[in-house]
């Protein structure tokens, strides 16, 4: 008797787990979509996605189920799902070094057919951005965000000390000296996290060694101990010695450092356009502060190879992927195409996020800073993707540690490049 009960229990358990969740009770296909914009912390993005999903479901016979996590939790969960081969039908990914292991593990479907098959999408992406999601010539992610970095500054502080926006590096150093002499923190940076500090290093490398030097190093075409790169690291430490950065920056996270700028204790903050809402549209920041903020492009370096001030450090943000084993691949791909298009139309006005697709500013009502920046993007000569995004996870991690050490003066510029070179050499063997 008990044996019969046990067996029937087991059978019931088995059947319920094997019934796939492809069709909901009313026969519609279900697409599982996992993204990283929770309603609380990324309200604007969350609302745009919700609206697009509602629109799409009205016109198509599918149900889209979302699972939402914040970016850090999302990263962890994605790794776990990947290792148990349970990726959602549609998900988000970062570019280059992040997406590579997933492609090599055969987990993602190529998405070139979505772009090639849609007239609206074919030339919509800003050149170079989609390519960051390609491995061996095939695209595995469609980017949704693009960011470039500028030095944002407090116009009121500059006016107080009669400072002009610096166009060259020696002019910049004069600005730093004046501010430091007057007890104002010239620039704030969250060197604990490594990557905010990397912006400074990358720009100096670009201006001294030319726009392709760091990418060449990662791809193995150039050496990390190139004199230009060593000079860039030296100039970073010179700035630290001059008092160019907030004290103890190597213990500050990006958020901690940001506080100094938002509290007007620091005059400058080199960060990317994801911060724009705080300087333009965000209702959480006082308007009088927002009115004081301007930006300038990173100055050129006298005698450096990188002569274009329109060469930026930046990169794509998240992009969409479709899982290779998805049982609703066709429907998922169709939705992805739709989402990218509609996102491009709404993201700037509704969320203050710059999409990776070209934006027609004539039709939109935007804050002036956005219009200027979108114009800059159109005139950009180059966008070098962040060092830690282009390189493998191991090199990225080392880069973060070394950047923290460089700002904390715990490593010399020569050591800095040497350790990079050794790690890169290990991988390129």
């Amino acid at each position, binding site marked *: 008797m008990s044996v019969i009960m046990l067996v029937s229990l087991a059978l019931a358990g088995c059947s319920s787990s094997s019934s796939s969740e492809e069709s909901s009770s009313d026969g519609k296909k279900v697409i599982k979509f996992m993204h990283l914009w929770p309603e609380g912390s990324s309200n604007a993005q969350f609302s745009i996605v919700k609206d697009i999903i509602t629109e799409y479901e009205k016109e198509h016979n599918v149900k889209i189920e979302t699972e939402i996590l914040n970016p850090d939790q999302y990263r962890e969960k994605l*790794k776990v799902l*990947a*290792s148990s081969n349970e990726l959602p039908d549609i998900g988000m990914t970062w570019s280059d070094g992040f997406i590579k292991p997933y492609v090599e*593990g055969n987990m993602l479907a190529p998405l070139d057919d979505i772009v090639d098959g849609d007239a609206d999408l074919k030339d919509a992406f800003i050149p170079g951005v989609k390519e960051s999601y390609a491995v061996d010539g095939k695209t595995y992610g469609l980017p949704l965000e693009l960011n470039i970095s500028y030095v944002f500054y407090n116009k009121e502080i500059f006016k107080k000390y009669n400072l002009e926006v610096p166009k060259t590096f020696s002019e910049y150093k004069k600005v730093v000296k004046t501010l430091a002499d007057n007890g104002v923190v010239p620039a704030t940076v969250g060197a*604990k996290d490594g990557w905010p500090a990397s912006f400074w290093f990358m720009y100096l490398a670009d201006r001294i060694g030319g726009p392709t030097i760091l990418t060449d190093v990662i791809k193995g075409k150039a050496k990390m101990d190139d004199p230009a790169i060593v000079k860039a690291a030296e100039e970073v430490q010179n700035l630290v010695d001059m008092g160019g950065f907030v004290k103890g920056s190597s*213990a500050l996270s990006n958020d901690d450092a940001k506080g100094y700028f938002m509290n007007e*204790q620091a005059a400058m903050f080199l960060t990317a356009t994801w911060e724009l809402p705080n300087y333009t549209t965000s209702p959480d920041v006082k308007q009088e502060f927002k009115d004081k903020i301007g930006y300038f492009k990173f100055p050129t370096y006298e005698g450096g190879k990188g002569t274009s001030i329109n060469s930026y450090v930046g990169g794509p943000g998240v992009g969409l992927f479709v899982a290779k084993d998805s049982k609703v691949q066709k429907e998922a791909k169709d939705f992805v195409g739709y989402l990218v298009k509609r996102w491009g139309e709404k993201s700037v006005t509704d969320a203050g996020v710059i999409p990776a697709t070209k934006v027609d500013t004539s039709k939109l009502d935007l804050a002036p800073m956005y219009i200027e920046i979108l114009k800059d993007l159109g005139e950009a000569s180059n966008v070098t993707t962040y060092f830690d995004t282009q390189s493998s*996870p191991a090199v990225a*991690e080392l880069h973060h540690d070394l950047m923290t050490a460089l700002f904390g003066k715990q490593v010399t510029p020569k050591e800095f490049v040497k350790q990079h070179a050794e790690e890169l050499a290990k991988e390129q063997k």
Partner: protein
Amino acid sequence: MRSVMSNKWVISLYILPALILILLLIYIPIVLTGYYGLMDWNGIGKMKFIGLENYIELAKDTKFWQSAWHSLLLGLFSTLSLVGYLILSLILASKIKGANFLRKIYLIPMLLSSVAIGQLWAKIFDPTNGMLNRLLVLVGVENPPLWLADSNIVLFALFIPIVWQYAGFYIIIFYAALKNVPEELIEAAKIDGATPLQIAYKIKVPLIAGVIKVMVILAIVGSLKYFDLIFVLTGGGPNGASEVMASYMYTEAFSKYNFGYGSAIGFGLLIICLVATWLIQKLLNTKDVDY
């Protein structure tokens, strides 16, 4: 009843559920970790068997031994702080005014999540705006140390919130143990003219020696595998100055996608903890004092 309890099959049946739980949640994962340590695996793709390569590299890895040293320093410091806890508990266990209230206060850090404690202390340690440095500047210190940014003192700076976090735990246990010391002994000693200090040192402490021994083991092993505040406050930085074994394991596995090596580190951590426990047992093997 006796026949039931002495029946070997029945005894096994009673132990079985807990045994299965421990096997599944502790012993099998330990073996699996050691097994993964034999692989080269990025967490997503296929695993590649590379034998003892990870373990050999671990033995030669200066970063690992540095992190082990930091863990050990943490263990030593925690053990020393046990003395402080013991003294506090002795004071609290005696009938001073406000002992009840103080006990509850000491427990509060235990109720906070490590992340919340981390955020709190990060703000306190902030080099320019933090409470600590503002205070030091106020009393005239010109250039107060940069705490978490200074690789020479970051580990010592971290000891403070870590000790603060677990104070309540140890105090409560010492207090409970002290309360178990029979009142008659204390009274007899008082009649004989013993001072409170002598009572504490010669009577109370020896009688709770067993508990102290267990606390030492807990403190050291807990410190060896400690992770929380190190990760939240410094992430092991600057440049490995505050790295401990657990944070090193996390970085290797989850940030560098090096799960094989990370597992080897985890297994190494286990071995070190086992060795430490065995050593401490040997050193502290004083006979329990009976009354």
